[in-house]
Every structure is written in C-alpha cells, then in structure tokens.
C-alpha cells in the first residue's frame, strides 16, 4: 500500500518538475532536492516526510517540454512512482532509462491522501474502492527496464560486441 502525496493537473512541464534555473546541477545524486521546487511538496520531500514508493497522480502529457534528464532523476532520487493517463515522449524514455517507475493508467481517479496498491496489472484505490486497468509500457521499453536501466543495457550490448 502506498499513499498519494501529490495530485497534479494536465500538461505538467519539466519546468514544474525541475525548474531550468537548477539545470547547472546535473548529477543524479544532486538533483532530488530541486524536485517540484516551486511546489510545497518540495519541503515535505526534503524534510524526509515522504517514504519511498509514494505516488504522484498526474494528468495527461506529464513531463512535456524540455529533454532535461534531471526531471526524471530528481523523482527517481526520492523513489516516487508516477501514475498518469499518459506521458510526454522524452520524459517517458528518460524515466525508463533511469528506472523511474511510470504507470500508464488512462482511467485513474485518486486524491491526495488516498491509499493505492499496484498489483496484477491494476491500480487498486483502497480509499474509493475502485480498480483501474494499467496499460503496459511498449515492449521495447520493457527490455531496458528488465536490464535495470539503459546504462547496464548498453554495457551488455557493448560487451557482446567485443566478443
């Protein structure tokens, strides 16, 4: 069971997830403190009030805008999981590459504070009693996830090329 700690509207851009003014910070170990830095949730993250595995509910087209990978690495740093009806292309690819868990769930309904469980291809909202179908990620992306991210996947390919 995990709690919804933030609910967002449609078309949340990478400028909301990771504002451009922090773009000089690039390393995945250093980006999490700027996650959603213009929203109150940032203080709760930094205060350690939000456990790993907590859930962000977003609207359609989450992560639109810039290709900045910090937008994925800052959320990965807190081990947040994002549930949305859909994600912008570059953000989704960055998330897959870094191992940030994205859940595509077109019908999702949940509010801040709701308790959710993700199991058997469904999101189960224990607060409102409903279940919502998860749409699987495209097969191609699953290969990267199974390898543990794009860095280990590329390493495998590189080593197999050397043989």
């Amino acid at each position, binding site marked *: 069971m995990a709690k919804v700690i933030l609910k967002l509207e449609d078309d949340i851009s990478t400028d909301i997830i990771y504002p451009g003014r922090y*773009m000089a910070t690039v390393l995945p170990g250093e980006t999490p403190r700027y996650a959603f830095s213009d929203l109150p949730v940032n203080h709760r993250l930094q205060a350690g009030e939000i456990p790993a595995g907590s859930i962000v509910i977003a609207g359609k087209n989450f992560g639109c*805008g*810039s290709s900045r990978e910090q937008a994925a690495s800052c959320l990965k740093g807190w081990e947040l999981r994002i549930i949305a009806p859909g994600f912008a292309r570059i953000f989704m690819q960055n998330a897959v590459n870094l191992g940030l868990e994205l859940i595509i769930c077109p019908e999702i309904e949940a509010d801040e504070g709701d308790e959710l469980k993700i199991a058997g291809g469904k999101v189960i909202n224990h607060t409102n009693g409903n279940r919502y179908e998860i749409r699987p990620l495209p097969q*191609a992306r699953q290969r990267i996830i199974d390898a543990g991210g794009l860095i280990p996947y590329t390493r495998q390919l590189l080593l197999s090329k050397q043989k």
Partner: protein
Amino acid sequence: MGMTIVEKILAHASGQAQIRVGDVVEPRVDLAMSHENAALVINQFHAIYKGTGLEPKVWDAEKITIIFDHRVPAESAKTATNQKLVREFASKQGIQRFHDIRGDEGGICHQILPENGYVRPGAVVVGTDSHTTTHGALGSFAFGIGATEMASVWALGRVLNVEVPGTIKVVVSGRFQSHVSAKDLILALIGQIGAEGANYKVLEFHGETIAALPTSGRLTLCNMAVEAGATAGIVPPDGETVVYLRQEAGVQEELELLGPDADAEYDRVVSLDVASLGPQIAFPHAVDNVHPIEMAEGIPIQQIMIGSCTNGRLDDLAAAARILKGKQVARGVRLLVFPASYRIYTRALENRTIFDLVSAGAVVMNPGCGPCLGVHQGALADGEKALATTNRNFKGRMGNPSAEVYLCSPEVAAASAVRGVISDPRKVE
C-alpha cells in the same frame, strides 16, 4: 504500401527494406548533438564503461557535435566547471565539431548545425535538447533524447528502441499577409491540434506555402513541432534545401532528396490556409493557448525578447529592425535581442540591422539561449509580463513562476516594443 519520409529514413538507417509504424528499430546515428548537458552525458558515458575493462571511447568523433549555448558565458562557477569538463572531454576524444564560447564559431546549437552543414537530408539526427526537431527543416529525421540515451549513442553509434512513429501530414496553402510569418503558422497549428495533438508522431509539412518558405522559416516550423508533442517535424527536401546547403552551409557533396511515396499512409491530414491568418499569440502558461492578436492587443509588457532557436535568424532580426528603425522602444519596456549565432550577428552588423535595433533602444546580447529557459540573463520580476519570440511559456519557464510569458513573432515583438503593449504590426507602420 508506400512510406513516409521518416519511414524511409528509418528503414535505410536500420538496414531494412520495409518498415511499419510501431516497429522497434535501432537506427545508426549520423549526427549526435549536445550542449552544456554534455557534462551529464559524459558522466553517464563513463558509467557505462565502469567495470568493463574497456577504454571509454566514442564510436565516431566526427559524428558528434557539442555547442555551448545555454549559459554563455558561464553564469556560475558550477556551469564554468561543467563547461571545462566538456572542453577537456572534446579535446581528449578528438571531437572537432565543438563550438566553444567564441565570436568566430559560437551560437545556438539549432543554428550552428544547419549553417555549418552538419545536417543532411535523410540523416538520423539526435540531440540532448527537445528542440532538435528543428533539423527536420532540412529533411532529416531529428529528435530529442535524454543524456543517458546520448551516452548510449556515444558508445554504440545507434539509438536503441526507436518505435517507428506515425505521421500527420500538414498541408499549408495560401500566401502570408504582410507581417505574418512561419511563427504565426506554427502557433496556429499548435493551437488547433493541442499540446499533445501530435504526441509520439511526426509532423510532415507540405503545400505551396511550405514550398515557398525559405529555410529559416522551415527551421521555425520544425523547431516548434515538439510543442505539439511531436517526435519530429520534417519538410520534404527540395530546391530550396539544396540552395541553402550549397550557398549557406558550404556543402559540396551530392545530396539525395528523399520524399514520401505518393501512396504513403498517414495517421491523418491537417489542412491550413494562411491567406486569412493574422498574427498569433500564445497566452500564459501553455503553448497551445493560442489566440489571434486582437485578443491580446493592449496588454502591457515589461520585457520583450527577440531571438532563440525559434526566431533569432537574420530575417527575424531584419523584420524587427524594419519596424523599429527610426522609432524608440517605449519607456518601461526592456527589449533584449539575441542573434542565434555569431555568423548572424556579424551579418546583422554589416547590414546595419544591429545599428537600427540599438538606436531604437534594444539591448543586443551575445548569441545564445538567453532568458528563454530561465537560467541566465534577463530574469523577470514578480508579476511582470514578458513577450518573446521563443518557443515555451510554461509557468516558471523564464525563471520566475510569478511572471507570465506570451509568445509571438519577431514582427509582433518589435511593434509591441514601440508601443509598450502587445500590438499588431500591421497597424504600427
């Protein structure tokens, strides 16, 4: 079944005769571009090699280009240190197409690539910048990727797990009115189909209006394809493409002009007629919040920016200068101008465009991204309204979430600078 341009490019780059939408391919890369975020790419590149016993070596230094543009000259010690790291890496790996902070080679990546002839029709171009879509203007399949994905490209020379995208055919007819341009067209299109109207798809531009459009305007169109969610924008290469590559970019070699098959299959067709199109404005805080200028006229503006990878080219600056020549920027307005490259800057000096702009009260800054992404130069005060020829107006985009950004063409920006409120350029001259 016939193929679209992007299907043809991907089939060729993947060594396949036929390809279908939804197929997963791993095309070879012809050009891999990064800017300051190469610092992160380098970090991830070294992580790939960790524990392998292999020497980290890029697959082909001639196919990699790095341009400093986002924060030039550096705004902080952190950026300066990142730039130093990238400089040293480029030198060590033998990356020749490295554009440092210099008046003889610098500029915004999306202008440096076309003007130096790095992009060819039919090429696969990837860049760690979402506006890499720009280079579809020269008939390449060009799209944005993240830093880790670029590190993988540097190691393998291929981009992994590309799903062949569907294509939306955009057919544009009619002649632009005076003071209406490619920027107004792309804003109108994004307003019509929405910020995710082309998600995971390609926008392929056709029609008499596109055929008559110079490369600078095509670059503007494809640049903003990503604002409709598109993976790429593309213009079928034609005589204009050849003239640009030969005369402007100095490309000598034979060019193959790949077009779509007559029976190519499209997801859908969108038709626009520009004959009756007036200037367009994207209101805060969404690029698809587009309205005709009549809805915006009279809104007071405190800062105006002309430039960026969307509209910082010579004809953009010249269009603004024609309106501003002999007039003054209104008191209370700061007009910042960023030429897209030093080549453009130099020409604008030679033809007195810069003189006219500065005489009118503009502040001409060094080529680069400037305040567009809110990291450097030209910050906005709380509650201020900015008008910009850039490509994004998301909340906080220019560095201050308490400010608002409106998007427009260079002509609207110039006319508005004169009056201090958003103004229709058709009424100012």
